């Protein structure tokens, strides 16, 4: 092969260096935020003059932060459940269905991923204001479900495409109704895809900020919105602490996911 890694010679070192730079570029901001959240300077100075946990203390002392985190979790959970259920039904139609406009429908369902988020946010904000959903949990969940749907549909359609329909047919010949066959045979077979869909959909809502800013009201704020709001008021290291916790939660979710996936695929 032309680009065989073992035969790249000196290019190999260059490649490694470049990869390292890209990784550093992506990771360093996160590292700095985490370091700053433990720094004693009020002004986010780096390197910090000393180390402290007081920003975390402040964070946990303010019920508004906790409430924002719980709101985020609640909305993300509901959006993930809705996105998985709708995504599952849509995936069956997209993979198994034989109707005109199937590819168009697939494209349509995936548009939230390619559409500029701000465009989507303004559109849905205007629409929800008119029908009275602005600033409500329901509006928030619906908006995030739309955003999360592509992240649910992609892994589920992939799993369903890799599943041999003969197995479902075998269950039907065995006497299971088509619905029972899907429930007892097809769903267990694509459970990894469904699980991935749930995690990705949850994360898509969990750290979403643009649509959330439009959907939020003074009484309904998700964690990213709260961070954004605080950032504009005062640049306190509490924000760094909140961000670090956000990163920590996302990171642990990813780790747990990969552990469970490994277990499921055994």
């Amino acid at each position, binding site marked *: 092969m032309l680009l065989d890694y073992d035969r790249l010679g000196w290019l190999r070192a260059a490649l490694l260096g470049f990869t390292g730079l890209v990784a550093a570029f992506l990771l360093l901001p996160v590292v700095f935020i985490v370091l700053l959240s433990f720094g004693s300077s009020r002004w986010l100075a780096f390197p910090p003059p000393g180390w402290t946990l007081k920003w975390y203390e402040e964070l946990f002392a303010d019920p508004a932060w906790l409430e924002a985190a719980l709101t985020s979790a609640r909305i993300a959970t509901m959006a993930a459940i809705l996105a998985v259920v709708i995504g599952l039904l849509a995936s069956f139609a997209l993979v198994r269905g034989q109707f005109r406009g199937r590819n168009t429908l697939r494209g349509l369902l995936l548009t939230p991923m390619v559409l500029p988020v701000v465009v989507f946010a303004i559109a849905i904000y205007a629409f929800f204001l008119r029908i009275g959903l602005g600033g409500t949990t329901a509006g928030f969940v619906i908006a995030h479900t739309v955003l999360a749907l592509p992240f649910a549909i992609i892994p589920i359609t992939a799993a369903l495409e890799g599943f*041999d329909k*003969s*197995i479902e*047919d*075998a*269950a*039907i*010949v*065995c*006497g*299971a*109704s*088509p619905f*029972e*066959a899907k429930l*007892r*045979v097809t769903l*267990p*077979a694509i*459970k990894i895809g469904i699980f991935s869909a749930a995690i990705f959909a949850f994360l898509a809502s969990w750290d979403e900020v643009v649509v959330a800013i439009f959907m939020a009201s003074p009484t309904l704020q998700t964690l990213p919105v709260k961070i954004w709001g605080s950032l504009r008021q005062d640049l306190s290291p509490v924000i760094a602490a909140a961000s670090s916790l956000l990163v920590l939660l996302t990171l642990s979710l990813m780790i747990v996911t990969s552990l469970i996936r490994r277990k499921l695929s055994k």
Partner: protein
Amino acid sequence: MTEPFLSIRDLRKAFGSFVAVHDVTIDIPRGEFLTFLGPSGSGKSTTLYAIAGFQQPTSGDVLLKGRSLLSVPSHKRNIGMVFQRYTLFQHLTVAENVAFPLRVRRRPDAEVKRKVAEMLSLVRLESFGGRYPGALSGGQQQRVALARALAYDPPILLMDEPLSALDKKLREEIQAEIRRIHRETGVTILYVTHDQDEALHLSDRIALFRDGRIEQIGSGEDLYLRPQSEFVASFIGNSNFLPAEHLETVNGAATIRLADGSVVSGVRNDREFRHGQKTRLMVRPEAFRMRPGPATAGLAVEFIDTAFFGERRRVIARTAAGQEIDVRPTSDMAQAQEGIAPRGQQIFFDPAAAFLFPA
């Protein structure tokens, strides 16, 4: 007349303008092992899937004990089926797989347990109940699939090329298992394959499909010894087709002239051919003899090559007209083993064991 157990009447399946199955009619008695044999795309699987309920036929009917199955959804037809691909439920153990059809029928636990044990012993996998399908070989998986398909005592078992994913040795082993299970359970089996050896080995009767129609139906012997068309003759067993000119047929015995000018009489023929009409004479490779017999005809050939296959030897010969033919003498082995003979060699065949087909 008593009605047949399973009856396929004028079954037709069209996909747009393409007709996959052309008005197929078969009556199948209870307990028969019937094989649908044919090349791919000949309509054999489509016919099977129509019986299973996965294909809605365009017209025609499928009757089980006189009752039409077509309005019955697949899961209520109570038919057993083994598929070409592995269709075990990967998240269930072998025992749970076999129990699945009984569980969806809400049978009591004790009966499920007893039946699963009975089925696993039928396919000789008693000790595999607790394993997952992923830990089984392909042959074992298909045996579990067979046990699962028979667990609810279906009146009919459909098998769609169940052995095509297995290697030759394993295939033969499981063929023997299938025969034994058919004998022991007495279930009516419809079996689809494109492998003529498999069909001959397993079946009571074979329906040979071609382009959506049944070309000939009968026992393996019927199809082999009395092929009704050149297609049947070439699909079942090996055959040589020699161009021949029809001279006359008297009382079912034809006289023909071969390409090298030699005249052969006594060829079995029940078709109407004109004098001088071009025909093809079919001679099985094993019908050739190295020595003349009482009523044999001779054919001048030159031996080109010979290969040893253990139980028999295959000789490639070239006729005087330059056509290569396949010769597998069953007797006169000693002579055949002498290898390639000089020019001017003659081989012999019984005209009554040869067939005449339209060119």
